[in-house]
């Protein structure tokens, strides 16, 4: 006993080692280039800093002065994951400015595309999350399920990534749905629902995964509101905000706004799993009640309009597009994507994590740095 006390007295006080761990720009856990600097004390992250700007392409600068149809198709190239929502929002800005009525059938097909895209984005998020988590079986399984959605998107839009379905006044004739395509969509979502519920059951009842992700990377509700987080990441902290409730296109559909309480990685992952079922619900309603009629309204005229803005709910949160029309060309174009505000949450979620959880804490906010890297700072010389 005496000896033990003596030993503890003589052992030096535990020294805190402060280090900086840079991850990226090219890193295995992140497909996209971005840089995370973690300030670590004894393997616990004390502060984090995310640097973007590596893939800045200046897309608003390219859009400036283009004819509006051309600029709309260019917005699709902002992001390869949520491309449809970008072109849809850009088209909605023009329709709002020029006061164009869109036929109901075109609205329904646009919503089918948007929800299919949300499904594929959320499934990609879950697959990527499971891969970072280290559970490759689930990751492979989710990639397998996701192929069904990709095939449906290819069937409707004609391409696996960039679909280009909405045009001003309606949708592209290529995306018109006939009976065979509707049947295929129905089969696809039935298959998807079955496989997803199997996955959800196994995911929730797996004690190993649950103990790994519960209480890690917590974003508190008040801090999420302070950091202006949006989309599923905000809903995972317990705030029931969904812009789809405010969009008049979604009025005929019945769906729930899913919320979770904790704001940790478990809430974020479960949030996306449950939202998938809501998307399936919306698609099922849309194909069951698909109205007859034309798909494009061609009776509109181009005019000069002031700056018009529009918000929609992208798979990652609130997406903002605004531009003015002058002589049929786009002026004063501003685009704000959801990930730019979620960066604050990513930095915040890292703090207090073990260093092995840091990448997971970033990935839980569903980062999309391709969308984000458009901000530029003009320095007067």
């Amino acid at each position, binding site marked *: 006993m005496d000896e033990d006390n003596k030993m503890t007295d003589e052992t030096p006080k535990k020294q805190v080692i402060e280090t900086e761990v840079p991850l990226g720009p090219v890193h295995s856990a992140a497909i*996209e280039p971005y840089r995370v600097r973690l300030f670590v004390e004894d393997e616990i992250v004390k502060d984090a800093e995310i640097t973007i700007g590596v893939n800045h392409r200046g897309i608003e600068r390219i859009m400036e002065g283009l004819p509006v149809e051309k600029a709309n198709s260019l917005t699709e190239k902002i992001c390869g994951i949520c491309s449809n929502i970008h072109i849809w929002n850009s088209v909605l800005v023009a329709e709002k400015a020029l006061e164009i009525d869109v036929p109901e059938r075109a609205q329904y097909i646009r919503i089918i595309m948007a929800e299919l895209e949300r499904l594929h984005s959320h499934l990609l998020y879950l697959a990527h999350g499971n891969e970072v988590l280290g559970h490759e079986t689930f990751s*492979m399984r989710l990639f397998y399920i996701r192929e069904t959605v990709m095939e449906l998107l290819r069937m409707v839009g004609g391409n696996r990534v960039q679909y280009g379905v909405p045009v001003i006044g309606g949708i592209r004739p290529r995306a018109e749905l006939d009976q065979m395509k509707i049947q295929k969509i129905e089969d696809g979502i039935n298959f998807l629902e079955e496989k997803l519920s199997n996955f959800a059951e196994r995911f929730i009842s797996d004690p190993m995964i649950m103990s790994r992700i519960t209480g890690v990377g917590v974003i508190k509700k008040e801090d999420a509101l302070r950091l202006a987080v949006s989309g599923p990441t905000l809903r995972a902290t317990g705030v029931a905000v969904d812009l789809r409730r405010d969009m008049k296109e979604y009025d005929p559909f019945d769906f729930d706004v899913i919320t979770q309480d904790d704001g940790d990685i478990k809430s974020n992952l479960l949030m996306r799993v449950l939202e998938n079922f809501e998307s399936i619900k919306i698609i099922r309603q849309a194909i069951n009640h698909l109205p007859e009629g034309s798909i494009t309204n061609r009776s509109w005229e181009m005019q000069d309009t002031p700056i018009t803005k529009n918000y929609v709910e992208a798979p990652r949160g609130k997406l903002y597009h605004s531009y003015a029309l002058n002589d049929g060309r786009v002026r004063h174009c501003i685009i704000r994507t959801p990930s730019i505000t979620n960066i604050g949450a990513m930095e915040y979620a890292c703090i207090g994590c073990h260093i092995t959880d840091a990448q997971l804490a970033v990935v839980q906010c569903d980062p999309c740095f391709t969308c984000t890297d458009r901000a530029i700072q003009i320095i007067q010389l």
Partner: protein
Amino acid sequence: MSLKSYSRARAVHVMLVYTGGCNGCDIEIVNCVLSPRYDIEQYKIFLTWNPREADVLVVTGPVTRHNKEPLKAIYEAIPEPKAVIAAGACALMGGVYKNIHGDIPSEEICGPVDEVIPVDAKVPGCAVRPEDVLAGAVAALPLLLDAE
């Protein structure tokens, strides 16, 4: 086939570098490696993120200004013999980001990829289809296998 080629053919490692495209090609390429539908691993081609381990470099995107030097560094770090595949419209000709007006070249874009590093195989498409990526990877294999 020499012993060296024989063993090389059984462990081809692909490294994916993303240089500022729209993410579509990258998702498709990762999809074609990881997803059970396309499963490039059945041809003994594996995905790696370490340039010193890699044999094939797959580049997507139009090479933004900040990505130019890192891309060169990654290319230098890959040991010989190596092959480079440029995948997607952006990597082949700059895509929609470069010079869309036809008069003012964008200052942000240093691409296409073959102006920065030498390219051996080109895979077209916006975004690339996983089948084409498989074909491109297979087309680049003789460069590795027949090298001294």
